[in-house]
């Protein structure tokens, strides 16, 4: 019975079906939940400082689910692939978040190159110049309720990457920005 079913034609059909499936998977644009709307701006001149005046040549916006853009030492999302412009670009992410538990929070921001991070309009920490991927800890006490953050980043040349996570100091767990927890939701 099985031998009759698995003849050459059926096997060829299965192979074709698998190929069609693989092709459909390749040609379907990748989708991630829309959590952060990220603006990426290509600068006309080279960037050496996060606060330098911008001279924008081109801008694009991309929805991402998590701020985890360090794959292969590039500004690259695990599903969406390369997102930046290669060299000399700024990235801005402004987003609301809800604090569920009052307490001390640490935002870990890894960047290659510089960044600036503020919560509710108040600057918490920054690294203004270029550097290899290095993580800063940014401490803040937050009350329950609605808040917002702004994360700005720049890539000059060479390797690039940006990653942001958070933790409540009363807990050992660390979560990626975009990942809801019992402490914060986005």
């Amino acid at each position: 019975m099985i031998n009759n079913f698995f003849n050459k034609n059926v096997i060829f059909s299965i192979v074709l079906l698998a190929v069609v499936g693989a092709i459909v998977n390749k040609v379907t644009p990748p989708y991630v939940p829309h959590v952060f709307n990220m603006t990426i701006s290509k600068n006309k001149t080279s960037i050496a400082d996060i606060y330098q005046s911008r001279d924008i040549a081109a801008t694009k916006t991309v929805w991402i689910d998590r701020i985890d853009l360090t794959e292969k030492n590039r500004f690259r999302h695990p599903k969406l692939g390369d997102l930046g412009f290669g060299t000399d670009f700024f990235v801005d992410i402004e987003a609301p978040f809800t604090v569920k538990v009052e307490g001390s929070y640490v935002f870990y921001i890894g960047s290659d190159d510089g960044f600036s991070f503020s919560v509710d309009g108040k600057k918490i920490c920054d690294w203004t110049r270029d550097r290899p991927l290095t993580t800063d800890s940014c401490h803040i006490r937050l009350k329950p309720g609605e808040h917002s953050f702004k994360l700005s980043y720049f890539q000059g040349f060479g390797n690039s990457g940006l990653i942001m996570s958070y933790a409540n100091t009363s807990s050992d767990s660390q979560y990626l920005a975009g990942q809801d927890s019992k402490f914060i939701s986005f």
Partner: protein
Amino acid sequence: MSKKPQHFLASVYQYLLKNLASVYQHLLKNLVSVYQYLLKNIYPLILLVCSFAIYFTYYGSPKAMFWDENYHIASAQKHIDGVMYMEPHPPLGKMLMALAEVAFGDNKHIDKQKFDSTDYLKGDDVSPEMNYTGFRWPSVVLMAISVLFFYGIIRRITKQPLIALAFSSLIIFDNALVVHTRAAHLDGIQLFFMLAEIYCFVRLLTSGKPILLRHYALLGVLIGFAISVKATGAIEFLLLAMLFLVDQWQNIKHFDPLALAKRLLLSVPAGVAPAALIFLSVFYIHIGMGTKVMPDRTYKASPQYLEAIRAGNTWSLSTFTIGLADNLRYMSEYADGVPRLDECKPDENGSFALDWILGKKSINYRRDSNTIDGQVITRYITIVVNPVVWFSAFVGILFSLGLIMSKFVYGQQEKDTPLFYWICAFTSLYVAYMLAILQIERVMYIYHYLIPLVFALINLALIFSYVYREEILQNNRHMWINLGIFVALVIAVFAFFSPLTYGLPLNEEQFELRNWFAFWKLQVA
């Protein structure tokens, strides 16, 4: 009296019946022959229409040179202007480009003086008004026609027109073949001659007639044309060896060394001499036409050769002898000077021969970016493979190697002996080419795989016919549906990658959707 009309009517009825039957039979016979005629000719016609549609879409675009066009157009123009030059490749391809430029080119108003004083044209050397249809004509047209040889090869071996039609679509709808050969490149011209050789070879062996010395000569002539375009065409000297094997199979089986040696003494010159004659004739014309020497562009030519040119003595045999030696020496020195593959180099376009099988690595021939409403839109001319075509071709080779091993290692009996040996022939050509290429130390590029790809595609059709022999004979519907879906996939994937083939505008996201495999090393603008 009363029976007479009845008798008459019966006779008329019988007469009509008899003649109607013959008219009907005649009509039926004609219909069958019309159908057979159509079947025989409609498929090649369909293929030719498809092929011309693919190759002539956006013909002449981009209106700028890319990849080796910068070299070949400069060389072709030197033929038109009668300027002596030397090049790493034999001159036939450039001669045909020059001929087409004179016949169809639309550049009479363009100042092309710079073309004669350089071997590599930069963008600034060429007027923006320059039209490329003439120089690109031989490669485009010959490659478009080549599909007929491809079809003919498969049809003659398998005796299945529909199988030949289906598999011929693979050579039409491959992005790498199309992007590389719809330009002023040599490979399309060379593939035309190579497919002509293979068709000739297959025709000789499937005609059922005895193999004569003039058949070796005919094959030699075609090989001569192929190697006069690019030296890699020499791989098809193997066809002469195969022809000899078939020709002398009885003497080989019965081990008659005397008969074999006698035939060898006749057949080798019969095949090689015409090839050499064509090759030398092409160089004779090339050397004869080079009547001017541009200042500082002597290509290390010997003083005797330069003197002969200045004396206007380029068509003499003595000049030919010196000129040929100088040209061959230049080709050899040039090949020695080409750098080796360096994969650590960030802008390395070359790749390792075994990586070509899966399409590594693509080459960005040209890209023109524009920012529209803050979005970067780029027109890419990139050699990227149709993965369905290339991967299938490789799977076909794996199947063939398995089949060959099953016979010669495991002693399995083949189910279709002639087809089995045809599979052996094309697998051998493929393996021989790859082994030869692996011996070359200089950097090589993915388009050097186009020749073995053609061998592998012919082989794919044959191995399919072998595996599905019974289903084809039974006209199995499931098999035909599968094959139809396969061809549809080939065409659909070609269409998906066609923006990279024809230089259609893409934004970054659209480009990334086509970046299927990291090992292709496609690079976004």
